[in-house]
């Protein structure tokens, strides 16, 4: 009896958000995954803020990209002989992505490449050759926003989502009238085990710590990805596992990059808070074929971003 109670207490007392019980969702970029300690923690709350109202679409894209990341990473990890950190140059995936694109039709071409290139956990595996595979393997995701936000910044658009690599039929949009309802709906959605990711769009204003903690706990229990999308960087303290500031990056053709790269959205991402490791800044590009992010810059930035210098402000 007492033993049981003790166990229950232990379960209740566990700190929300930083446990890796639910595992991590690797982004497939060595530098970021290393900083995040293996990937974006599932079953935790992550805050993604746009630097300003106008940049909200970019932050939205980043959040959607995170929620579109494949869940089969753990299976890939176990079968891959190489651990994450040792995957070769970060340019690899980008180039592979294009190769995949070209070699999509003949199936044996893929196998050929797989044999000759250092194996990358997701890039090859995630190319779905079966026509029906796309909608089937994905789990539902929920987008919750206040009515005003949907009117002001635009509602999620099905054809656009589809081109982005998300299955619109899996999206559940919830419009709420008050923030109170938004937090309640997020919590409800996070409790549902069939939901893969929950995106809550929050307009201006601070969030109280209790609400954030409730969300974190709900996410921990189900292992879902809780993403809080904010239209401006938050100033309040938060218990979120990570905090990002994500804006749009100019899609200038990068040196050595092909022409079709220009169509791909680019994000200037700043990881400004990380409970598991260092912070950092990266320019990422979304590849809708692989459905994953790739580094848009050929290598690590020469200088660390201004974020690590307390005397300078974040752009």
């Amino acid at each position, binding site marked *: 009896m007492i033993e049981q109670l003790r166990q229950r207490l232990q379960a209740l007392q566990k700190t929300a958000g930083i446990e890796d019980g639910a595992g991590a969702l690797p982004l497939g970029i060595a530098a970021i995954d290393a900083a995040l300690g293996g990937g974006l923690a599932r079953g935790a709350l992550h805050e993604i803020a746009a630097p300003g109202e106008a940049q909200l679409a970019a932050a939205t894209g980043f959040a959607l990209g995170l929620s579109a990341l494949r869940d089969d990473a753990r299976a890939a990890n176990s079968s891959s002989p190489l651990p994450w950190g040792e995957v070769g140059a970060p340019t690899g995936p980008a180039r592979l992505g294009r190769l995949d694109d070209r070699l999509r039709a003949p199936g044996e071409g893929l196998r050929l490449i797989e044999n000759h290139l250092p194996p990358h956990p997701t890039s090859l595996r995630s190319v779905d050759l079966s026509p029906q595979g796309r909608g089937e393997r994905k789990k539902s995701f929920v987008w919750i926003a206040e009515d005003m936000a949907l009117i002001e910044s*635009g509602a999620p658009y099905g*054809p656009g989502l589809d081109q982005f690599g998300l299955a619109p039929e899996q999206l559940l949009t919830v419009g709420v009238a008050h923030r109170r309802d938004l937090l309640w709906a997020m919590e409800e959605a996070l409790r549902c*085990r069939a939901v893969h990711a929950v995106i809550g769009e929050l307009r201006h204003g601070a969030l109280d710590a209790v609400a954030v903690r409730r969300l974190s706990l709900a996410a921990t229990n189900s292992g879902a990805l809780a993403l809080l999308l904010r239209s401006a960087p938050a100033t309040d303290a938060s218990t979120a596992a990570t905090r990002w500031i994500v804006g*749009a990056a100019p*899609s200038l053709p990068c040196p050595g990059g092909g022409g079709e790269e220009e169509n791909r959205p680019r994000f200037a991402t700043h990881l400004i808070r990380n409970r598991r490791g260092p912070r950092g800044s990266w320019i990422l590009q979304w590849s809708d074929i692989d459905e994953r992010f790739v580094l848009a810059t050929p290598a690590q930035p020469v200088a660390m971003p201004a974020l690590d210098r307390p005397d300078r402000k974040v752009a």
Partner: protein
Amino acid sequence: MRGEGRDEGAFRQSEHSEKPPHPTSSLRSEVDLSPHAGRGEERALAVYGKRGNAETLVAVDDAAERRGLSAGMALAQARAMHPEIEAVPEDAEADAQLLENIADWCLRYTPLVAIDAPDGLLLDISGCGHLYGGEQELVADLGRRVERAGFAYNVAIAGSIGAAWAAAHVGEPASYLCGEERSLLAPLPLSALRLAPTTVAALARVGLKRVGDIIDLPRSPLTARFGPELMRQLDRALGREHEPLNPRLPVAPYVAEQRFAEPIAREQDVLAITERLAVRLKFALERRGDGARRIELTLFRTDGALRRIATGCSRPLRDAGDIRALFAEQLAALSDEFDPGFGFDMARLAVVVAEPCPPEQIGIGGDNGATEAGRQVDQLVDRLSARLGARRVRRLIAQDSHIPELAAATVPAQTTRADNGWQTFRRHRAEAELAPRPLRLLTYPEPIEAMAEVPDGPPLRFRWRRALHEVIAAEGPERIEGAWWSEQGGAARDYFRVEDKSGLRFWLFRAGLYRDLAPGAAAPSWFLHGTFA
């Protein structure tokens, strides 16, 4: 205190009609609160309205009747006789509303309640009497409650609507058995047959004044002279021809109800009783292989008010626990509006919409994980819809349209399932090589001030929401024709995907083409329609 007016009810064996209050009943309570109430001497109250071109008394109360006033009297005459009477203009809308409320309240006796305008109700009580220990007891209970609410009434039970109506309005309000219609109707005036006044007058001219006068007359001459309506009404009143009752509310296919000796008021009690009723419904649903898609909980408050709470679900539902959970969300959302007052003395759970629900096989077959996940998502949809409203929880569906804002629509998630047309959209997208579409689309395109280098080209810079954006890259135009087959189709649009200096990507369009421009007309305007990631 009792209201006044011709408030009668007619009933009958299978149909029973009741006449509820009439205007003065509802007014009385207001007047009582007014300063006159304390005077000791009761003031006469009359309601008047325009009939033809004259203002006429429509209803009078007891006190006014004692002074010799009656409905149908001219208002001027009544005022001349008794200057102190209180005359109030009639409010037909409020009366109709009141009648509807009473009709709803009568649902506690039978689900078949019809309104007999302007002041009557018809209740089909076939098979309902035993719930109260007999028809007489049912009527007695109804009378007690109506009287306590302050209404005067007449009530009669008979075997046909016509006979019950006649007994309640003209004859002796009582209970008549089937087959007694003839003896009941014979002595009554012809107006008891619900005939047009002109027909009654025409019959009176030839000396036919009572129903008994025409019952045994040859039918064809009467029909030839007075029209088929006369014989039909007679047949209906005598029960020779069936008269359908048109219930005010659709009758639910599955109903379970519970009365309480002591009123319940607490939310937990309401939920507990909901679950118990749901268990009862479950058996009925299972027997016919149905599941509930829409469920309504009706709570009858002791003071006669009704609380109706309805909830929908995305897939046919039978489980009592699930139904209880949905109502728990509804009650939480209602919070203050759910005012139990002195408590509810009856609860009814009705499945308003039922759908075939095939029995589920558990544990066999490989697809179990997917169906389980689908079920969980449906449960989430139901929970969210119950709390926030079904229209707030939506799914995207693809529509067959080339116009961007019509290509996708949002519909309540409970009404849709599965694919929603996106497979077709994907095929079309692959075939047509659709140009990029934005992630977020504005509900209405917002006008922008744009400056283009060449008339047909993309803008060089534009101002949206007071911020200036310098365009450094543009893709387009993608020409999307308006709906030319429709009057409001709008002009063709040239869409551009542009990127500004800071990397923001927008979807702009120019409404109208320069080549279509009439000489001297203003240049086509620019709009921003969406944003890319």
